[in-house]
């Protein structure tokens, strides 16, 4: 075999490094391009990584075959060309493929199986071509490197692997920290495709077949297309890409007025935060109202110090602002991991600026923030979700709940929003049981009317009131009206410490329980059929 025409070892290794970088761009941005339909849960990540790894394995095998044939440089040019074309096409094809496997209007309890299988099928169709083509690059480069210097195969392979891995490293950091937040998903793919196309052109030129580069003009076809988002009810006010998710604010008609929702990665009927023009209680069906009850169950005070972990767009704050007992001022701190959510909330959902009893820690993980905050709160609200349905494992462990307990004033409250369908829901029971273990007292679980949420209440050094008891009752008024539906049999339960196991930092089955919860709800719905 002859050495490649033109080019040096450094040039070849640069091609390999940039192709390695392109592989990671495809892999990391792949999850984001699917996120508007399937979210970014660990199941989706696993599916995408699995598909990419399988395609790379096939690519390595194909590359090894091509390397044994004449003209490996031309084969490399072909592989890079196909990788560039497949990468450029991804943002265009993703909506078409995703909607094959996740029809519009799916409810969250129905979506579990579709998220799992749909993301796998979509990833297989979308990412196999690019990853397979990129997998061919390594073996072909090893062949060229070995032939160029007449070295041992191991020496050439080591150099190529080193260059490829360093490129992948750069692609990993560059994609997550720079490309996706600054450029967005579509432009990130197009930039990656452009770089791969340049590499392909170089290889075509080196191989003396410059005409092959004309193939890459097809990439231009992808430029005018903007990826389509899932269908939206209402008016889209603003959409943005954050380091974590796709975020949008949508306005919907509500009676004679309007309501706004902050949605993240929504391929289903769910939303993350809600806004109505006036602060205070929301209509039935919104769990946020249940966060106001501890202030009414407690002795009157001038200031109610609240920490909201998972602030979102500040719905809990607005409900508390308008529904605390007369004479009680809200002193609120909120922790939100996604700074883009906070920015959109300030523009569209009246999230108060810092100062005057309000403080937002944006870009902070709830558990990390809890460790640096002062503590002594009257109430901690835990409403931290990832990917629509997942309570993060580190925010559902007994160690975490002990830290929350330590941040409460004596007699202070923890109110947890848990997505769950009934009192036997495995997630509801596990979270309540774990929190009760940390608080060394039973947890009161109530099912929120007209919703698929439960609220779990715990108190530091005290027990939550039993429905119907003297401590439970409130003076007549809108807040007291919340209590009646909660008192019915089968709508509340006390969960004792450890009654349904204890989730720990070391052994935390929350993700498995969440999948079980959704499967159980879907099965229950099927059972309703005659």
């Amino acid at each position, binding site marked *: 075999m002859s050495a490649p025409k033109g080019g040096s070892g450094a040039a070849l290794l640069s091609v390999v490094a940039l192709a390695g970088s392109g592989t990671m761009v495809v892999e990391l941005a792949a999850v984001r391009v699917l996120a508007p339909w399937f979210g970014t849960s660990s199941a989706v990540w696993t599916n995408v990584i699995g598909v990419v790894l399988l395609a790379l394995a096939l690519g390595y095998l194909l590359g090894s075959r091509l390397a*044994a044939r004449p003209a490996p440089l031309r084969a490399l040019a072909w592989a890079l060309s196909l990788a560039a074309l497949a990468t450029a096409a991804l943002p265009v094809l993703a909506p078409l493929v995703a909607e094959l*496997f996740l029809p519009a209007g799916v409810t969250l309890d129905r979506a579990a199986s579709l998220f799992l299988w749909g993301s796998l099928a979509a990833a297989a*169709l979308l990412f196999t071509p690019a990853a397979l083509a990129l997998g061919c690059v390594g073996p072909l480069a090893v062949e060229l490197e070995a032939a160029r210097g007449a070295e041992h195969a191991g020496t050439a392979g080591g150099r190529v692997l080193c260059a490829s891995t360093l490129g992948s490293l750069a692609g990993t950091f560059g994609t997550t920290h720079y490309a996706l937040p600054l450029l967005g998903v579509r432009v990130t793919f197009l930039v990656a495709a452009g770089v791969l196309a340049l590499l392909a052109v170089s290889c075509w030129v080196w191989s003396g077949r410059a005409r092959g580069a004309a193939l890459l003009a097809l990439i231009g076809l992808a430029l005018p297309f903007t990826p389509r988002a899932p269908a939206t009810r209402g008016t889209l006010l603003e959409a943005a890409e954050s380091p974590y998710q796709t975020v949008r604010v949508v306005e919907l008609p509500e009676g004679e007025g309007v309501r706004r929702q902050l949605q993240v990665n929504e391929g289903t009927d769910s939303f993350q935060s809600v806004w109505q023009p006036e602060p205070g209680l929301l209509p039935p069906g919104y769990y946020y109202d249940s966060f106001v009850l501890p202030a009414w169950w407690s002795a009157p005070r001038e200031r109610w110090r609240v920490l909201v972990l998972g602030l979102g767009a500040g719905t809990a704050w607005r409900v508390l602002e308008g529904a605390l007992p007369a004479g009680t001022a809200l002193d609120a701190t909120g922790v939100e991991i996604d700074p883009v959510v906070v920015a959109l909330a300030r523009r569209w959902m009246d999230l108060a600026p810092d100062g005057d009893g309000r403080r937002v820690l944006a870009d902070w993980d709830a558990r990390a923030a809890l460790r640096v905050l002062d503590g002594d709160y009257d109430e901690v609200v835990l409403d931290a979700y990832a990917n629509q349905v997942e309570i993060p494992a580190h925010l559902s462990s007994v160690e975490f709940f002990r830290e929350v307990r330590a941040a409460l004033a004596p007699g202070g409250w923890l109110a947890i929003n848990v997505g769950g369908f009934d009192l036997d829901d495995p997630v509801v029971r596990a979270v309540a049981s774990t929190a009760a273990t940390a608080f060394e007292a039973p947890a009161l679980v109530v*099912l929120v009317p007209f919703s698929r949420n439960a609220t779990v209440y715990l108190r530091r050094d005290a027990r939550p009131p039993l429905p119907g008891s003297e401590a439970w009752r409130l003076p007549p008024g809108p807040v*007291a009206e919340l209590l*009646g539906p909660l008192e019915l049999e089968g709508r509340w339960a006390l969960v004792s410490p450890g009654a349904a196991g204890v989730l720990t930092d070391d052994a935390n089955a929350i993700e498995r329980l969440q999948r079980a919860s959704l499967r159980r709800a879907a099965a229950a719905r099927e059972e309703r059929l005659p």
Partner: protein
Amino acid sequence: MRGAAALALVLGASLATSASAQESALAAAVRLAQEGRFVEALARARSAPEPLARAQAELYVWHHAGALDQALAAGRRGLAVAPADAWLLQNSAYVALSLGAGDEAQRLVGELERALPAEEFTAHAWMRAEADDLVRQRASERAALTRARAVSAAVGLAALVALLLGARRPASR
């Protein structure tokens, strides 16, 4: 949720009217639920001697309290003893729609259509359209899931075959 509270008031009025003749546990349950005294309302509902009135009152209380599963269960109990009761059919269908149980809503609306004169049913025809939409939605979800599983299996199988074929040592150069 489809304006559940507003609908509950409408239903309460019609139920109270239907129950006024007997000034019974049923009427008391409706009144207590509207006052937010749900535990008492449910107890009074359960004290109704007739199974139909008991089921109607329970459905009303559970629905007004936002416990839709229990409301539908009460509706089913009532329809077991009075399968053509228009009030129960209408309200059970409404709750089934709220729960996303399209097939059940479709069946209940069909029975409601048979139970009511045509001119009266037209006011409830929207429920049939919604139930049909839900059934279509469920069918498209099932089809999507089947497609996803088939594609995943096909791609996996193709990859396995390719790996097996590709792993064979190529002929020497």
